[in-house]
């Protein structure tokens, strides 16, 4: 098992149950930075600030507020939020199978791989193969990390992948983006078809690299070669340790010195 699993449980439908683990399918290539104090390169942390009182606010003095109008909020505590959180599920219950092409890619949110757990290999392969042949995807609901997801389970190169889907209410309407219907001329259609045909290629994503990430990494490498990294000073304090410990150490020390 190479990849760390995020969740484990079973895919089930009808009388079928397949033990699986969920692992990540993508790792965003974002280069992240820490923010440092220019004075001594100490890493900085974020704290909450109250602009009205002009002072920092401690975590225990912070509560969530849902804004219902200007300066009007409904407050919600952690406990209240937890009380309406769905129970973590142990199964991915497929409720229906749909044609893969019917799910528009606008619904795709985040991809994962499903890995068969011990004993599930055969049923897993069977499901993946039948989905491939029939071009179907299984729709399921399942809870992960306190959120309930609508997911599609589909074949990917002989394996199964799980893609979280946007709920339909999250998709914004496209009514306003279509221009008014006007007749399309045959000649123009043919011309457009020809251009597209000339520009047609196999989809080969490896040909495209994340150029910004690449150039940032090159910059970092170059800088690392030229100058040693900066480090914040360690906090030096002369604070004494626990009294009993120091006393025991001093007693042991006296014995050591006597025997030397």
């Amino acid at each position, binding site marked *: 098992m190479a990849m760390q699993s995020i969740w484990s449980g079973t895919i089930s439908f009808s009388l079928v149950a397949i033990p699986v683990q969920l692992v990540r399918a993508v790792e965003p290539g974002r280069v992240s930075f820490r923010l440092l104090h220019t004075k001594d390169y100490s890493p900085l942390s974020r704290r909450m600030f109250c602009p009205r009182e002009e002072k920092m606010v401690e975590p225990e003095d912070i509560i969530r507020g849902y804004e219902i109008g200007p300066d009007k909020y409904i407050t919600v505590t952690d406990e209240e939020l937890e009380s309406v959180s769905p129970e973590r599920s142990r199964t991915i219950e497929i409720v229906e199978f749909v044609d893969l092409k019917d799910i528009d890619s606008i619904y795709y949110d985040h991809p994962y791989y499903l890995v068969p757990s011990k004993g599930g290999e055969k049923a897993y392969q069977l499901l993946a193969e039948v989905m491939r042949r029939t071009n179907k995807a299984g729709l399921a609901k399942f809870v992960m990390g306190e959120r309930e997801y609508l997911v599609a389970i589909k074949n990917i190169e002989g394996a199964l992948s799980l893609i979280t889907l946007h709920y339909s209410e999250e998709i914004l309407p496209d009514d306003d983006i279509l221009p008014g219907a006007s007749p399309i001329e045959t000649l123009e259609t043919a011309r457009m078809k020809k251009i597209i045909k000339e520009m047609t290629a196999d989809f080969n994503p490896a040909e495209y690299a994340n150029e910004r990430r690449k150039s940032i990494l090159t910059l970092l490498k170059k800088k690392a070669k030229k100058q040693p990294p900066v480090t914040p000073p360690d906090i*030096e304090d002369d604070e004494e340790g626990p009294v009993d410990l120091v006393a025991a150490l001093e007693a042991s020390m006296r014995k050591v010195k006597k025997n030397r």
Partner: protein
Amino acid sequence: MNKKVTQIAGRNLSLSNLEKVLYPSTGFTKAHILEYYRLVSPYILPHLRGRALTLKRYPDGVAEAYFFEKRCPAHRPSWVATAEIARDNGEQMTVCLVNDLDTLMWVENLASLELHVPLARADAPENPDAVVFDLDPGNGAGILDCMRVALILRDLLAGLKLTCFPKTSGMKGLHVLAPLNQKKMTFDDTKKFSKSVAQVLERNYPDLVTSKMAKEQRVKKVFINWSQNDSSKTMVCVYSLRAGERPTVSFPLTWKELEHLESNGNPDKIQVEQSEAVSRLKKSGDLFGEMLVMKQRLPYI
């Protein structure tokens, strides 16, 4: 590029640049490095297992630029075990776990000559398995001074019924570690303990020991770097090569050996190089074996 595909336990691993000399002063090549780690793998793997590896890569050898890599490279083979670690800023980071020979060979193929790991395992990142005393000689002090401090430290801890084990850092200093292997131990505990020990030693041997980080405080003294007892810090793993001029190893010593070397005033003999490391391991086994199993409690914490 010289490439060679090898099979380990049925997995294909492509090794590259095998003839490249990485230690120019001795002609030690990448192939030698892979062979060294293959030979010591039965001994080093238990100490690496389950710990977030920090790679310290020397693609052009010890005399050229190196870089640290805490994240497990994204181009890793699918069979490399990983863990998710939360960084101080709350971000998740994927790290490599060197749990088997294949992974060790893959990591060495990346020219990660030095293997650095935290004192805690990735599944319990806030709970160290050991407390460490990193003895670091300041300007004008040497490894002989470190040996003296190590022997005093051993006796001091024995008075608290704690057993500890020394190893060379493979560079200038010594590491003395006391195994704990207690689930509830935290870095706060080990840091508080090691700092108190360092301060007591400093007070009793002011000309020999300092507990303070500042460079000017360390002249002609041994700095006991207690701040290594921290979840964000890593230490060079026992049996790791070091990227010095020669292929030295961070190697465990018996206390008897250390006493002998100290009384003979023979500090240079303390360094163990790769070939000696292999033959010693074959003869005496893992002197650091107790680090993995011995349970001890820190008193008064």
